[in-house]
């Protein structure tokens, strides 16, 4: 398990996402209202890149004609076949037990901590004064 510096925190404002490479595989980092989440980018269904998916909310219903919409922006819908994934848990709506995205620990850390290592940041120059998104994988 290594810690990967994948982006400046300012690159992924609330509501945004960024596709990064960690250990040679795609990881998509989402920012939901200031909280960061890192998920495997590859849809477990047929392999589409979830970084191209639309953010939506969770719609639930107790009976026909009722639409209870909550958690706007916390569900990502696969750009191909429309499967919904909960960004907070990585679970799919349609088959939450078996179809889920791998989750990675993600933190935001000041550059001052990171320059002391250990970390992997091939593509970044870490500056002491910035904050960085760090994915553990």
């Amino acid at each position, binding site marked *: 398990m290594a810690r990967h510096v994948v982006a400046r925190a300012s690159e992924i404002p609330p509501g945004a996402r960024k596709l990064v490479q960690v250990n040679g595989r795609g990881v998509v980092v989402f920012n939901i209202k200031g909280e960061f989440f890192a998920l495997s980018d590859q849809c477990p269904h047929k392999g589409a890149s979830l970084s191209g998916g639309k953010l939506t909310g969770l719609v639930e219903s107790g009976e*026909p004609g009722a639409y209870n919409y909550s958690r706007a922006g916390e569900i990502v819908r696969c750009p191909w076949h429309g499967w919904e994934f909960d960004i907070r848990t990585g679970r799919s709506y*349609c088959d939450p037990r078996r179809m889920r995205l791998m989750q990675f620990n993600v933190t935001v850390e000041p550059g001052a901590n990171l320059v002391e290592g250990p970390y992997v940041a091939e593509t970044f120059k870490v500056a002491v004064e910035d904050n960085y998104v760090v994915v553990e994988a």
Partner: protein
Amino acid sequence: MSGDWVGAIDCDMHPRVPNIAALRAHMSEYWSDTVELRGIEGFDTIAYPANAPLTVRPDWREGKPRPDEHAAGYAKAMLDPHKFGLAICNCLYAVQIIRDEYMAAAFATAVNAWVKTEWLDKDARLRASIVVPAQNPELAVEEIERWAPDSRFVQILFLVGGEQPLGQSRFWPIYRAAEKHGLTIGIHAGSNYLHAVTGSGWPSYYLEDYAAQSLAFHTQLGSLISEGVFVKFPKLKAVLIESGVTWIAPYLWRLTKFWRGVRNEVPWIDRSPLEFVRDHIRLTIQPFDAPAAGVEISRLMDLMQSDEMLLFASDFPHWQFDGDAMLPAGIDASLRKKILIDNPLAAYPRLGGRHAT
């Protein structure tokens, strides 16, 4: 033992109304007079042309009255020799095509009264479906309330082909009544012919018309699930009668795949359509669309992903099989017992396990 039908529950047989006089005997004075005054000959449809091979098996055409025209005829042809426990009468007299909804209701009442008098009262092994004027769900509910006190009525009968798919909310009063009384919903091949039998218009031949019936079953299954009928009425069961059976797995794969992608359109469907099917949908086993050879029946059965879905039915007097080949060959003994007896009992609460075996 493959020839053992003892106690089997025949979930689809068809009493035939022999003539309009048989119904007039069960009509109010007004409607009986109307039949004579207006020269009404009857409301049979082209869904089962009288002399088409499929409509009546050759050996069941013999006799006057014909075996499908009286309870003793069916008993002699099927109940007695095979020792069935029970049978459900699905009368296909086509009240559904009558444009005048009050006339449709009057004919439905007459059909149900005829079935009660000439069939249920004549043989204790018989049960029946309530024929309803689905043209007007309020009138249909009245008809259900009329017969529901008689526990020998176990089902409400619809035709698969109509103007609107049966999941839609206009039909919900019927399902509310069904759930209240423990009646099952039965959807049978046939159309009210108010519009084309396919999505691409009218085919030239009867063979195509009958073939298209299974396509309308696709629509009805999708409708019952997507509209949330089983969310709204969780105790309801629906039986797809004379549908052909083997179409269902490919259709369910499609419906499930679409649901996974677009389920936010119908958020009340909060689990896979397959689960709704397992809990609420049953199919009668005749006809069973399978090749004469080359495909193992067990593999076709596995497509159902459940051994509780299929209900025994002869489809008498329709010519679906010869001799007593009433089930596809190659069904093992335990599944056979489920199909013949256990599954029908579970599908029809009103059979109450009180069948004679």
